[in-house]
């Protein structure tokens, strides 16, 4: 397992001078200011990830007209509505297949899928597996707040054992899904996990995803103070940051089979995996060209307009 | 536009002509090219003869290896009802197909069988005329068993004249790979020759072995 460059952990607000995400906001240009205020609760981690995303975009210097964000449904799913990019708020669980169509019909686009843990791994779990298998060039950002927040904090496939949610009032007992392990096994070519405490690393991982080709997956462990933290006596957003800081262990070479989330145990973070293999479009083109020779008409950018 | 079920065969299926419509069932087992045969026949009628033809094939467990069959309606006017109600012509390439579809054959209808694979054990509807051809044996002698369906088509063409000879040939050649054109042409030709010989001899199917053109394929 090869790994990407390892950003050093930096506490919040101690980044390179002039790049402080809290003291100053260079990300406004990426937001639909006409839609503010946003719906997210105070202390919610989703906004932090959007901050990181905006900064990552800025750093890549990508042509923003060619960057598209696709979301499913959920608190995280609302991200598509706040970023000032071509953006699609689709249906619950189906952001990835929508993004698949976008990417294949216009390969010039940089397609980001931004959604929640429930959306991507439960109702949309099958699409996640298959997009990874295909090594489709999508950049998938999964905000994992360990619960179905938008609907009021029910148990999710990602809810750690013993956690209290509205549908596990006596504590969850199903093992939580280990998402990095799953997507790596399914064929993802970039896999990372950070928490909203690790803003610099999160941003760097996003930056890497945005500039590489192939199925790239980032899990960001994020607080839902309103529903998950509160019910599990984990304090507010700030307490959660402290908690993340205490229990996180960065290990790019972690054995992915052993990094499943628990309620209060260690959170293994890192850029776990980065490998090269032909992405879906490369594989498709190579195969068709090989079989059809000059009869093959390759699809380029926006091939099918009027 | 050629006449349908013309000349001699009028006798075979009188009310078919009255209705200007010929209902055909082609049946056998998987691998015999039954569906392709029906498709070629339909194509010959609908494209090269310029009449109307509707082909439906039976799907389901039937289409997976075991028995398979196709239905073809050929008519001067657009076909309305897509299925065979009473077959004017049954082409049976296997015993099972024969047993299953012979009750559907019309009185005075025409029965074409692969003579080595079908034994006519049960009573046929009244006035049915039967013709048999060793299509598989002929195909094997020509070099490839897979053209048995094309031999059968040639035979069909000779004894029924539902489609013109020219249309049949065009339909065959436009349906098989170019590398197989010569073989298919030979198969079609052989089928036609045997069919014509049977027809002209006026002998019942059981006695066709006496016809030299026929017997030549049997040893």
């Amino acid at each position, binding site marked *: 397992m090869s790994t990407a460059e390892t950003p050093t952990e930096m506490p919040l607000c101690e980044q390179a001078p002039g790049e402080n995400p809290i003291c100053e906001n260079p990300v406004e240009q990426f937001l639909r200011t006409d839609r503010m205020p946003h719906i997210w609760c105070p202390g919610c981690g989703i906004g932090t990830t959007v901050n990181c995303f905006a900064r990552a975009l800025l750093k890549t210097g990508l042509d923003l007209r060619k960057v598209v964000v696709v979301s499913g449904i959920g608190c995280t799913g609302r991200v598509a509505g706040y970023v000032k990019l071509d953006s699609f*708020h689709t249906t619950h669980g189906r952001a990835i*297949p929508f993004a698949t169509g976008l990417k*294949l019909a216009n390969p010039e686009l940089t397609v980001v899928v931004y959604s929640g843990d429930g959306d991507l791994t439960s109702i949309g779990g099958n699409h996640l597996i298959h997009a990874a298998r295909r090594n489709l060039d999508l950049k998938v950002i999964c905000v994992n707040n360990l619960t179905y927040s938008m609907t009021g904090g029910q148990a999710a496939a990602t809810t750690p054992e013993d956690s209290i949610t509205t549908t596990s009032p006596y504590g969850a007992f199903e093992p939580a899904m280990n998402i990095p392990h799953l997507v790596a096994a399914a064929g993802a070519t970039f896999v990372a996990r950070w928490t909203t405490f690790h803003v610099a690393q999160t941003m760097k991982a996003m930056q890497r995803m945005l500039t590489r080709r192939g199925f790239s997956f980032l899990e960001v462990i994020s607080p839902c103070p309103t529903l998950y933290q509160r019910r599990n006596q984990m304090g507010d957003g700030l307490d959660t940051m402290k908690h993340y800081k205490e229990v996180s262990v960065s290990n790019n070479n972690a054995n992915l089979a052993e990094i499943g989330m628990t309620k209060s145990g260690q959170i293994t973070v890192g850029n776990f995996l980065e490998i090269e293999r032909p992405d879906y479009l490369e594989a498709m083109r190579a195969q068709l060209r090989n079989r059809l020779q000059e009869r093959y008409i390759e699809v380029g950018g*926006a091939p099918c307009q*009027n | 536009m050629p006449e349908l079920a013309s000349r001699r065969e009028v006798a075979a299926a009188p009310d078919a002509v009255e209705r200007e419509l010929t209902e055909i069932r082609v049946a056998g087992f998987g691998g015999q090219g039954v569906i392709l045969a029906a498709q070629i026949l339909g194509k010959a009628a609908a494209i090269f003869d310029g009449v109307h033809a509707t082909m439906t094939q039976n799907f389901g467990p039937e289409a997976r290896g075991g028995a398979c069959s196709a239905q073809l309606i050929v008519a001067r006017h657009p076909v309305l009802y897509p299925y065979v109600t009473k077959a004017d012509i049954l082409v049976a390439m296997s015993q099972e197909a024969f047993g299953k579809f012979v009750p559907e054959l019309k009185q005075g209808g025409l029965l074409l069988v692969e003579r080595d694979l079908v034994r006519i054990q049960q009573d046929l509807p009244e006035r049915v005329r039967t013709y048999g051809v060793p299509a598989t044996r002929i195909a094997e002698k020509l070099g490839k068993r897979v053209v048995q369906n094309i031999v059968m088509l040639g035979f069909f063409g000779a004894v029924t004249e539902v489609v013109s000879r020219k249309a049949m040939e065009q339909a065959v050649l436009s349906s098989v790979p170019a590398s197989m054109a010569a073989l298919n042409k030979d198969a079609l030709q052989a089928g036609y020759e045997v069919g014509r010989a049977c027809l002209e001899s006026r002998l019942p199917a059981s006695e066709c072995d006496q016809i030299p053109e026929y017997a030549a394929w049997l040893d």
Partner: protein
Amino acid sequence: MHADPTGVLTGTHFLNGDQACCEGALAGGARFSAGYPITPSTEIVERFSKRIPTIGGVFIQMEDELAASIAIQGAVWAGAKAFTVTSGPGFSLMMEHIGLAAMTETPCVFVDVQRGGPSTGLPTLPAQGDMMQARFGSHGDYPCIALCPSSPQECFTLMVRAMNLAEEFRTPVFLMMDEVVGHMTERVQIPPAETIAVTPRKLTDKAPGEFRPYEDSEDLVPPMAHAGEGYQFHVTGLTHDERGYPSMTPATQAKLIRRLREKITRGMDRITQVEEDNVDGAEVVVVSYGITMRVAQRAIKLARAEGIAVGGMRLVTVWPFPEERIHALAGRVRALVIPELNMGQVALEVERCARGATQVIPVPHAGATVHDPQQILDAIRKGAGR
């Protein structure tokens, strides 16, 4: 605008309905399809997957119908014309995304080759049991357009039309085939590309700063933009305002839902396609669609031979329902006979539109095969009082 010749297989062919449907999609400009195999619709995408690489476009076999039905919408917003195909169980799985297409006004075509149901039902045998599902299958109130071909030839022409209507009205359009039509092989005439009219996508001519994705326009069909062109617009399945932003108020909801409905009702004249056969002076008229129309015609012939003045009305577009045509007809005949391969779905609509003005005689059939023309003939006789 006419068809791009690279996608048009001009000539006379012997094709089944599924194959012809694929050719219609290509002639209509489809350059993207996503599918998931299901009998009896699979042949459509099998052919598409073979044809499209030499025409310039993409086919992807998705992991399920949920994925297929939304992947095509992604492709549409990236600039492609797109369609998906399915049958029975797959159609049920697609429902949520039919609603999404209606709500986001994404032009796309859903082909349903109807088979016997419910559930797995009869995978290889026909029915017309999804007609109401096409109309009402997704939750909420939305209009739709559905066309019913009766032959492989029409699978071609109506698929082109479906692609065109989707663009004209920015709405999902259904091509409601059935197993018989899909698997039946007949002559199909594909005309030269320059004679096939193709409706271009209605794209905005506004500059990025001025573009409002769901702006009111005269025909109520807002011009759209594609991703990657610099408009940086937002599309959501939530109730949205003209900017495309979520706005969950009674006023926005009322405005949006009304417009979605009205853009179709206003376009009725351009959508409705109904064929009449001797309805003037008829005592009884048989109203039918799809494969049943052909069977009904045989019954009509038999009835005429008995001296009954019987006419035929064939619904090429079933949705939106030709309400006024049926109502007008109802006032002039003794009975309307409605044979269909279901237990009486369109018959309910006919009954509603007849508003008691005439006798409505459904001829239900559970599917697995077509009607025996005799069944329809009996209903005609009953309607005529014989």
